[in-house]
């Protein structure tokens, strides 16, 4: 019995005896990303990009004369794990944190960073309320759902569609976007003939497509993620149904075309912040060449790129504030950082920590499976 207790005590000791970070001549930047779980592909993309950018920055001498060290923690794509990851980062002496992807995951970590005085910059979290709570050191490179909703409604109007079907996937993000778009479309007098949610993670969506087809829309707005979008396009083609699809920014992923097949993906519209490929800035071009050199592929998703932007913004903040103090960095980002040359277009922040200006663009998939920026 005693031995068992000792073993238990030892396990306890082990479980919590992790090395605390020591202040040294490095500047630590935390990256909180879903390295495991359903969104592991996003998280690992984020890690690749941030590591590459840190290498480059260190090759240029780091920030304020110190080398940058990236401390990565897995948030598992779930709020509870995220709150632990956040606690862990706060104990490791990071000056700033980049991440994370899901809105509710970010939300679970917000108060922890806030109470620790560490600035946080989320890359994939688009839920409106994240920046409505008055956290002074919270930023995001991702645009907000309401902005995307506005863009979606506007685009549908410009393309001249009269009857819209809206499909989401019940996730916080997709539902939010669907609701925003639904309200705006109705206000403009566009008829919404269908509004429902699919179950993400499945393979067969013909049931839903059959039902959608029965509603006979001019266009389908799908606000979910790329794996489902790809399957919808593929199975839609199998049904010989030729209705156009518009998607949200979560479908901006190179794998979309792979999943759907080039033929089925052709003509698919989606909204997204601009990709580095579509920017003429030197920063974007250099980044792309280096990324391809190092990993032999294109950046897997725009969200990973936005994490990269988050990292670059934080480095600029630390350099600009000449300090690793959270309030000073935040102050600099709010006031002094204007039109920073991001990998997803120019970046400035408003008082809430949201990006200023129109971030969204409209893309269309061409016959070769390329994402082509549209001018509407």
């Amino acid at each position, binding site marked *: 019995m005693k031995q068992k*207790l000792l073993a238990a005590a030892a396990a306890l000791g082990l*479980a*919590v005896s*992790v090395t*605390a970070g020591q202040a040294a001549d490095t500047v630590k930047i935390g990256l909180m990303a879903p390295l495991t779980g359903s969104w592991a592909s996003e998280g690992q993309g984020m890690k690749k990009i941030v590591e590459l950018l840190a290498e480059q920055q260190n090759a240029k001498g780091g920030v304020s004369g110190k080398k940058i060290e990236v401390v990565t923690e897995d948030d598992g794509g779930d709020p509870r794990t995220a709150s632990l990851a956040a606690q*862990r980062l706060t104990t490791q002496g990071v000056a700033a944190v980049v991440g994370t992807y899901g809105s*509710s995951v970010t939300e*679970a970590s917000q108060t922890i960073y806030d109470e620790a005085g560490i600035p946080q910059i989320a890359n994939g979290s688009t839920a409106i309320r994240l920046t409505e709570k008055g956290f002074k050191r919270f930023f995001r490179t991702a645009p907000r759902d309401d902005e995307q909703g506005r863009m979606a409604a506007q685009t549908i109007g410009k393309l001249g569609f009269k009857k819209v079907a809206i499909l989401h996937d019940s996730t*916080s993000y997709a539902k939010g976007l669907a609701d925003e778009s639904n309200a705006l479309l109705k206000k403009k007098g566009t008829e919404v003939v269908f509004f429902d*949610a699919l179950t993400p993670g499945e393979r067969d969506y013909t049931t839903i497509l059959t039902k959608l087809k029965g509603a006979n829309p001019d266009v389908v707005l799908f606000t979910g993620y790329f794996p489902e979008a790809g399957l919808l396009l593929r199975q839609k083609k199998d049904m010989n149904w030729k209705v156009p699809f518009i998607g949200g920014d979560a479908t901006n992923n190179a794998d979309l075309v792979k999943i759907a097949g080039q033929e089925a993906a052709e003509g698919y519209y989606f909204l997204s912040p601009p990709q580095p490929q579509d920017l003429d800035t030197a920063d974007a071009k250099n980044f792309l060449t280096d990324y391809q050199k190092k990993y032999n592929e294109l950046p897997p998703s725009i969200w990973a790129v936005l994490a990269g932007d988050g990292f670059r913004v934080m480095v600029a903040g630390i350099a600009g504030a000449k300090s690793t103090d959270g309030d000073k960095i935040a102050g600099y980002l709010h006031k002094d950082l204007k039109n920073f040359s991001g990998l997803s277009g120019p970046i400035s922040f408003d008082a809430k920590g949201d990006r200023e200006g129109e971030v969204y663009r409209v893309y269309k998939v061409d016959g070769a499976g390329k994402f082509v920026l549209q001018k509407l």
Partner: protein
Amino acid sequence: MKPRVDVLGAGLFAAAMAVAPLFLNAYQVDVLNSIGLYALLALGLNLILGEAGLFNMGHAAFYAMGAYTAAILNTRYQIPVLWTLPLSGAVAGAFALAVARPVVHLRGDYLLIVTIGVGEIVRIALVNDVFGITGGANGIFGIGRPRLFGLVIRRPEQFFYLIWGFVALTIFLFLRLKRSRFGRALNFLREDEVAAEGSGIDTAYYKLVVFGLGAAWAGMAGTLFAAKMTIISPESFSFWESVVLFMIVILGGAGSIPGVLLAAFLVVGLPELFREFAGARMLVFGLVMMVMMVVRPQGLWPARGRQKWLAVSGKALGP
């Protein structure tokens, strides 16, 4: 085995836990908080699964009921979150009674899938914003910090004492329950339902009541969870949570309170310990689960029979 060793060991453990926050950083304390919540949930599930032998793989549903009750009462009616504790427990318990009633007679694996189904139905209902009060996939945010004796609880070490205090109380109560007439009835049920019924025990009643009790505990754990996170959403109550709780109970040794505690430390703590493995941490975790089960099939710390303390004098019996 002398009972004194037990008491001594438990005392040492309690003392170590009581001073732990003084030596640990915020992250480490928060890991312990997470372990505490799982321990609380698993202790409740242990009554159902370990003591009564009813296969329940949908415990997260009751957890969710409690958390949402607390969150709704707190955010809509401004009821202090800790005050909702008994009500959350009652709602979760009542819900469990209602759903268990028609299905609790099902045999093993059929009950297993039904509880999985109930868990999924609850989660889907939450995601779809049932009755317009659960906030859909966004969940509910802005839950107030709990207050205790005028002190606002916000830092990890403050939660530590709240959560582990509740765990200690639970252990105390459940130990007593285990040794009572009620606890015995659950064991009869687990060992042989027909024989229990044939000895005059109303098995249907006990099955139902233990479901209600375990669920009520999950509901109260849900309140603590809601208070700690200040935001809850359906993904915190996924099928995976039920699976984790199930694993904790079986890995620890069904029906064993120290076993459940130990397993909560391992199942919640190991993935944290394996953070160094980054992407491979869940792989290592899965492997460790398998190996531990193969090496100790009865659980890490199996329940000891009651006969030891019952037989001390043969006749005299006292707690």
